[in-house]
């Protein structure tokens, strides 16, 4: 009896140690995540100062600070991977974190070739900060094991490529908006408007198209892998689930955008508007559909659980 009691005590002690360890790691993770969210916020403020003062100093500092945020965030994601012993994009908390990081990383990758152009950073950092705060303030940070439907080799491929496409579309849209905002002034002949002038404006704008072009096959793969996975898991590759349908809407809108570049009358402002519309559809696919499905009481196999 004593031996059994000792065994039970030892087991309980092991469990308590494990629980304490997990709680400690989660505490570090949550505080680190808050730090990352604040860093994104600081970057946003710096970019806004750049916007209002037209000085490049705050913009450059914003980009350098964003590097700090992104590197810290990468460490955070690795920590989460270690905690969960799996890829960290199951819950909405994790997906929001992943989205924020991938959008910022994509922006920094594209931005490195620009000289003193920081305007697109406003949208990117605001979305990244917003995603982080939404995760921290409203979603549960608990680390959960993968539920049976998610235990598939498709999980990582589908999510990584879909989110990479989302990140690319975010940066593409931010360039598009910056272009539309600055174009009238540049066309009027102002010498230097936020690093953009008559010589580099169209090259800058072309990046928006190239990014959307880059993201389109990734989104296509995201939809294809989702359909293949659904076929394996549920026996139906397409069920007009709200999430599936919104991803198709996003794909169709970007298809319209890419085709409209080849239509002379649609090449300019209409194409730009399609790009922005595609970005809005992407946000609906990622976040909006959860809210819409709950609001309208429509069941969805893709709803993120609280």
């Amino acid at each position, binding site marked *: 009896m004593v031996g059994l009691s000792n065994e039970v005590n030892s*087991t309980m002690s*092991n*469990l308590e140690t*494990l*629980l304490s360890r*997990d*709680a*400690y790691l*989660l*505490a570090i993770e*949550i*505080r680190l995540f808050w730090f990352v969210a604040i860093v994104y916020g600081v970057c946003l403020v710096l970019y806004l100062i750049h916007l209002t003062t037209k000085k490049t100093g705050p913009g450059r500092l914003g980009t350098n600070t964003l590097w700090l945020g992104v590197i810290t965030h990468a460490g955070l994601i690795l920590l989460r991977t270690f905690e969960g012993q799996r890829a960290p994009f199951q819950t909405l908390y994790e997906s929001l974190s992943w989205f924020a990081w991938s959008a910022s990383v994509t922006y920094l990758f594209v931005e490195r070739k620009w000289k003193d152009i920081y305007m697109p950073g406003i949208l990117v950092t605001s979305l990244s900060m917003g995603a982080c705060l939404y995760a*921290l*303030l*409203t979603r*549960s*940070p*608990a680390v*959960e*094991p993968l*539920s*049976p*439907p998610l*235990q*598939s080799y498709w999980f990582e491929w589908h999510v990584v490529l879909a989110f990479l496409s989302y990140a690319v579309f975010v940066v593409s849209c931010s360039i598009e908006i910056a272009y539309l905002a600055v174009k009238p002034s540049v066309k009027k002949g102002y010498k230097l408007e936020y690093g953009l002038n008559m010589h580099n404006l169209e090259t800058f704008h072309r990046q928006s198209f190239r990014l959307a*072009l*880059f993201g*389109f*096959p990734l989104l*296509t*793969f995201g939809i*294809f892998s989702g*359909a*293949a*996975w659904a*076929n*394996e*898991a*549920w*026996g*139906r*590759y397409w069920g*007009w689930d*709200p999430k599936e*349908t919104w991803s198709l*809407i996003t794909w*169709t*809108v970007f*298809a*319209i955008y890419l*085709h*409209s570049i*080849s*239509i002379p009358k*649609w090449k300019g402002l209409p194409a730009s508007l399609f790009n922005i519309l595609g970005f809005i559809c992407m946000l609906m696919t990622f976040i909006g559909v959860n809210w*819409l499905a709950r609001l*309208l*009481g*429509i*069941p969805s196999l893709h709803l993120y659980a609280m």
Partner: protein
Amino acid sequence: MTIIQKIKNINEQKIRETWFYRRFASLKTSCILFLILVGFYIMGTIFPQGAQLDDYIRSGGKFTSLVIFFDLLNIFNTPVFLIIALLLFINLTICTFERFLTLRSQRKAIVEDGLLTPAYTFPLDINQQKESTEESVRGIFKKELRFKEKTSPTHGIYIMEKGWSYRWLTWIYHLAILFCFFGFLLTYLFAFEDELTLYPGEATAIKPATINRWNKSWGNSAQELDFRLELAEFITEYNQLPKLDYPADKLSRLAFALGWKDPKYTLKNESYFPKDWKSRLKVIKGGLAVLEKTIEVNDPLYYHGITFYQAAYNQNLKIQVDDNPILFETESGKELIIPGVEGMLKFGTVRTGTLFKKDGSTEKIKPFTEVVLIKKDDNRKIETENLGKLEQGGGIYIDNKRISMREFKEASILSYRNDPGVPILWWSGIVVLLAMSLRIFGAWYRIIYRIEEKDGMPHLLMKVKTRGLMADEERLIKRLQHSLMNMTEPIDLNTPV
């Protein structure tokens, strides 16, 4: 050309000149059709697809008259949507055909293009005859820069390309999308699905309650399949998931961040998180087990064109009140009214099988369920009270009555489906992805050049066209400049590099 061929050409020309053909060979038409389809898709996300009208109205659904008139609860099967999809298919077919004809007649256009103003001019500072200079430059493009001659030189104009032809790749993935439409059509016409509930030890015949649209339109009825399915064993596994003590409100979460408190995991009232549920199945044909497989979510059973998926499971419980030999039957998750007990009892999922604990050990679960008492007050407000765990063999007391779970029986719910469109969609989907990726990411270059004498010196006049995100015109020009600077002798095209 024979008379028949001449007639065919005339007819083809006439068809291609019709209003319908010209409209449907247009990219603008594709965009307009896409936009219309987006409208349908959005409607499909606002109105719950597949829902019954009564359920829709009961749950507070609005715009009922519109829903009925436009069949908004089944919008993707409405004739209007199908017609738009058909128009898109026709548009894609005509565009693909037109593009094919254009691709075959590219050569003339390319040569004509070569006569226009060049983008680059390089002086060639070598002391050679013009023919040798041409051979040297040709050698640079072919051997060093790995270009291939597209056509033999015409009027001294050379055309070379490198990389996969982006036009053909674009054509290929559009053609593959056409095949996808074909796959969707097969699914629409010939796919059928149904559900099957299997109890352990029972071989169940499979007769679909639904038939595909094709058979339905011919008045055919569903046929029983020539094999049976037996559930040898149903297995459930759970992970031990500690509960996280973490506030829900925003201010408290901010306080946590500032170090006011730390999150905490506890094992009190821990949840059993589903790890897996599996069915060990046997396919029985002619009285013999011809196939045995354990299926789970994401790992179905394929047999004779039918795929069986682990969809869900249900549990039948037998509840005893005091020592009454008559048992109440219920299902987990459903409410049960027991005479003498105020309110209704709801029995949660019976946890049984294996528990994978946090410390890596495993434990056989003694079957139990969570019991909740549901009461409605005078204002029809629902109150619930958690009565706790009810283990098999144990009991809980409510209203002086002892409630016990005498036995429970699990059944595995499988969904099964036959869909001949899936293989076509697989292959065409792969082709779409491959061709699209090569077209968009791959690098393709075309150079058109000629050598001209200017101011007593040969000059290389060149135009470059690139496609694909990996194509780098600047890098190509730099490499060419470097090669041209090092060019002192003619390069022998027959000698490998």
